[in-house]
């Protein structure tokens, strides 16, 4: 019997052409045996992404209300906690707006790439909120930001020039991510997502290690991923520069007490300073230098990538990022009071609690209400 079976196998396997499987006919059972059906278990809820999108928009709206109308740090904290638990641990971190950059890039380049409405919504909603209300998403809706916020322990001050320069890494990362997804269809943002391993409670050791290292750095330099790496944060920053409303530290007049500046863990508060308008010729030199840097990057793009358009675009993007940062140094604003830096503010609401006027207002409200 055994020999027959094996011989059958060999004989049938040797028959050329056609589809190689189904070598043995289904048996005719004599004992009345019925074949059990194959059980394919369906996914939990087929509309889950739409539920997520709705929840995301609701969370953004609640975050906006808490930040700009209630001015409640505690509310933002609780919202962040919810985001970590739901978007993080329950949904295992996918799909998030940060990763959706790549889906959107692919969909824009390839009309046949399947992208669902929910993903488009998840990508656009935080950007729109950022354009009108600042980076509300970063403050209490992003699970990656919120988990880092929980690990804040002692804040080390980062010099402003270093903060600004490291912040450019977000745009470099954004460029690299878009380049990789366009060229190789690889999702680097998702592959090197440092915290998603914690949400799934499993992952490669080096990735969990990377996440742990970032959380460790975050004990002293709060939210390093958001400030120096997050590509979506970079996009949100760009839009938040023109936001209609933003985190106003004090509800009344600023007395320049410096408490908010000391309380902000993210170096996101601009100090009052005399306008350092660079002299005409000096300003001209800066602009000239930045144009030079840009030309250098474009040239090196041609040198490194030859005629590959995407490579040249990547190199040009690097040049544009550096050159525009240099150019902003040539212009400066006059400030008389402490103000939030719209682009850098992560909307955590900590400054509200430290502003002496904010406190008084809250107390008055409490007594009145």
């Amino acid at each position, binding site marked *: 019997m055994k020999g027959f079976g094996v011989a059958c196998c060999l004989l049938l396997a040797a028959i050329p052409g056609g589809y190689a499987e189904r070598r*043995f006919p289904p048996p005719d059972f004599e004992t009345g045996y019925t*074949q059990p059906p194959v059980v394919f*278990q369906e996914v*939990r809820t*087929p509309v889950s992404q739409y539920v997520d999108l709705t929840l995301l928009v609701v969370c953004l709206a609640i975050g906006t209300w808490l930040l700009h109308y209630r001015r409640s740090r505690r509310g933002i904290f609780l919202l962040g906690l919810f985001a970590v638990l739901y978007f993080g641990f329950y949904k295992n971190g996918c799909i998030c707006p940060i990763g959706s950059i790549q889906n959107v890039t692919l969909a824009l380049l390839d009309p046949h790439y399947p992208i669902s409405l929910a993903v488009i919504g998840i990508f656009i909603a935080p950007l729109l909120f950022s*354009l009108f209300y600042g980076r509300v998403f970063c403050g209490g809706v992003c699970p990656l930001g919120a988990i880092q916020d929980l690990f804040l322990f002692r804040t080390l001050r980062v010099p402003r020039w270093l903060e600004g320069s490291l912040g450019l890494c977000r745009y470099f990362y954004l460029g690299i991510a878009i380049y990789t997804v366009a060229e190789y269809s690889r999702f680097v943002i998702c592959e090197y997502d440092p915290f998603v391993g914690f949400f*799934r409670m499993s992952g490669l050791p080096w990735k969990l290690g990377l996440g742990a290292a970032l959380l460790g750095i975050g004990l002293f330099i709060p939210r390093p991923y958001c400030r120096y790496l997050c590509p979506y944060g970079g996009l949100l920053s760009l839009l938040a520069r023109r936001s209609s409303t933003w985190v106003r530290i004090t509800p009344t007049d600023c007395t320049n007490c410096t408490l908010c500046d000391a309380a902000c863990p993210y170096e996101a508060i601009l100090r009052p300073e005399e306008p350092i308008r660079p002299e005409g010729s000096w300003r001209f030199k800066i602009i000239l230098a930045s144009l030079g840097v840009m030309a250098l990057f474009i040239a090196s793009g041609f040198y490194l990538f030859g005629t590959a358009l995407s490579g040249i675009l990547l190199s040009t993007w690097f040049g544009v990022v550096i050159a525009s940062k240099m150019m902003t140094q040539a212009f400066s604003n006059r400030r008389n009071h402490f103000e939030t830096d719209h682009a850098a503010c992560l909307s955590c609401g900590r400054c509200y609690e430290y502003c002496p006027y904010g406190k008084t207002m809250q107390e008055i409200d409490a007594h009145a209400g």
Partner: protein
Amino acid sequence: MSKPDPAEGRRSFLEKMTKGVSFFALGGVTGKLLSNALREEMVWQIDPLKCIQCGNCATACVLTPSASKCYHDFSMCGYCRVCTGFFPTDPTTLDEGAENQLCPVGAIQRKFVEEPYYEYEIDRTLCIGCARCAKGCTSYGNGSLYMQIDRTLCVNCNQCAIALVCEGKAFSRVPVEQQYVLKGSRMS
């Protein structure tokens, strides 16, 4: 402040301009995206006809054990006594002893039906997705054992980690309404 500073006016005009531009850029991107958007949600699945049973499913998935599991389509099965998905290709003895089984975790249960037929059933709570049984069955048998992603386990990563290393390029996103790619119905 009777006389407005011309620099201030210029600045606010520029700010409004850039805000408008960003708003319309966002709108444009949304419109472009909506033009080829799908209403249904997409989930990752294996095309069993492309799968070459390389075994990467077992190790590459972000979950441990892998969300990729072996499924058994009974309607395709030959109920072989010498099942090449159950026994190694050179079996020493044809009994159910663990040392004689191909499955490293003993996830396949063999049940006698009638002479000479045996039923093979997979306990997916034990399966680690190594695809050895599927390889044996597809190479020498009917191909009724094949790999699919268990949709109740898969977390639907934006970038499937197995898809990156899949040697048969068998992974693709499918609409959630047809979340399993069945071999039986495809071949009919």
